[in-house]
């Protein structure tokens, strides 16, 4: 019986948390880049937020310096304010030399009283980029065969 009650309580808490999270997200704000739950390999990060109404937003980028179980969010930049008087606009910002790790972008929609009325998030993972390997990209056998063919053509004519 206790187990059942505990399960119901846990399920209720999860539902409440989820609904809270969705309620907090502004339907007029979309974090387009980097998209939520994606892995990127970029060192130069483009932050692009689509804003589909007249609004003031504050954008922050955090890096998780803790662990997945116990995250510690350290600001890369915080509360970058942007106001638009248009029904469609984009907040953009470049962040250079982004090291590998887990990041969170937070966009606060600021209400008339100056406080955040909505908060929209995007969580991304940045990974080290593997360098392009010439041998792996080009099939060396194909290249050698073509080269040999080209050599024979140049000797004997086409």
């Amino acid at each position, binding site marked *: 019986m206790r187990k059942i009650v505990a399960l119901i309580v846990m399920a209720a808490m999860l539902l409440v948390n989820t609904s809270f999270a969705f309620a907090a997200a502004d339907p007029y704000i979309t974090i387009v880049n980097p998209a939520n739950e994606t892995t990127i390999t970029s060192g130069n990060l483009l932050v692009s937020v689509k804003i589909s109404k007249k609004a003031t937003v504050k954008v922050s980028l955090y890096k998780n310096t803790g662990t997945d179980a116990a995250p510690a969010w350290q600001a890369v930049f915080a509360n970058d304010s942007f106001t638009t008087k248009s029904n469609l606009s*984009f907040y953009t910002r470049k962040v250079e030399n982004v090291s590998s790790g887990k990041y969170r972008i937070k966009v606060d929609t600021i209400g008339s009283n100056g406080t955040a009325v909505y908060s929209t998030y995007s969580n991304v993972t940045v990974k080290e980029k593997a360098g392009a390997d010439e041998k792996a990209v*080009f099939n060396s056998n194909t290249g050698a065969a073509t080269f040999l063919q080209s050599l024979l053509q140049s000797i004997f004519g086409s």
Partner: protein
Amino acid sequence: MERTPRENLIEKTKTVIIVVLSVCMVLLLCFFWLNISLKDIKSFSIDSLTSGEVDGGNMPEAKALFVPSRFAVTDGTGGDRLFDIGSVACWRTEAGTGMADLLEASLNTKPFFVEEITKEQYDKILDTLSVKAVFDYKLRFADLCTLVSGNAPAEVEQVGAIEELSFSTASEGSLFVKDDRGKYYRLLLPERGGYLSSYIETLSQSEKELYFPIDSYLGETAVNKTLVPIELYAELQDFKVNRDFDAKNRETIDGLAKRFFSESFDFVRKIEEESGRTVYMYGYGQRILIADVDGTLEYKKEASDDSASVSFLEAFKIARTFIKAQGGVATASGDELQPYIKSTEYNFDGNGGSRFVFGLKCGEYRLLNDSSDAIVIEVSKGQVTYFKRSFVSFDEKSAVGHPLEAMAAINVIAKNYKEIYNIMTENVLLKEDAAGEDAEFEIVTDAITEISYGYVYGDDNVARSAWIITCANGGLEVYFSLYEGEFLSYRVQ
């Protein structure tokens, strides 16, 4: 009977006198009979010019004009930096380390090696520290090879018009080509381009603004790799331009017209219209020149049927000679201008003719007119059949001010997408209508093929600093003020 030396001398002198008198008689006959003046002899006939140098104005050679429109350098960690050919040593260097130098070395290698590669291979090898030389106009790769090394190996005939010539530090022994048929090629170099690698590394770390593909700003649904700067601090400011000539100044216009009809100007009919336009006509309209009130000169000539067509590069030589004969790229008042190739067309007339369109630059930025191009010239069957020039003079120093933050290009589009959509609809540049605002925005962003900035002037003769948004595969250019993002004008090409 033998003549004495004295008699011999007298006979020879007589012979010389007779020859001189005969030549003088022929020349005098020409002067009086054909009504030729000494000035006419000094000048030259446009029609007789097919190639070679003439003592006219300045016009750069093909090698100086058929160059990349820009260089895109990336360090592979996201974003590109764009450079004008005049500001970097990526193409030709004295040390032979530029991309054209490497291409020349590759073409002169025996055996020459070129292989087709896949798009995936091309994208992967360039997704690191690399440089792309981008060509905005049509130039067959074989023609580029001829310009670079004097000849084109038979193997390059398979390659179409070049869109990108690329070099990657991940494959320093190769050059890569993307053509207009969507095919990709790899050329082997005789030596590794180590110097170019270190040079582009320096460029990749410069302070130039970063460009990202437009789909990075817009999200997953967009698929458009047109580069857009994330932010821009620009020194461009508005300035006055003066049209090439004043249509009321008959003397200047006649002087310009004589260059077109030099040997037969006396037989040219001149019609002065009430609007201020002057029309010069030779014969029954075989040759027409129009000097318009907006300072443009337009020349048309019927092509002879008996002439053979010439190659694209030969046609360019003919066009260049013609332009030089018309005073080159200098205004009627003598101001030298800086041309670039805006577009080209092979076989524009179905008879192997070539069309060249030139634009003007102010410093490293394009100076556009919202209704015409600086020079349009068509060569058909080895003759110039159409020529139009629209020049302006200006003070280049007045075009540069203090750096200011431009309105973000992506927000210029967001602010004005309805305007662009309506222009595209009015000019029948859309395949289908959009259902709703989101669809309109998507259609516009899908149609964008280039975003750049420069100067644009119209009838008011004020060159304004502007965002230049090119849509519909170059069929439409829409101009917005650089700092406020306000609509200025547009041009359907």
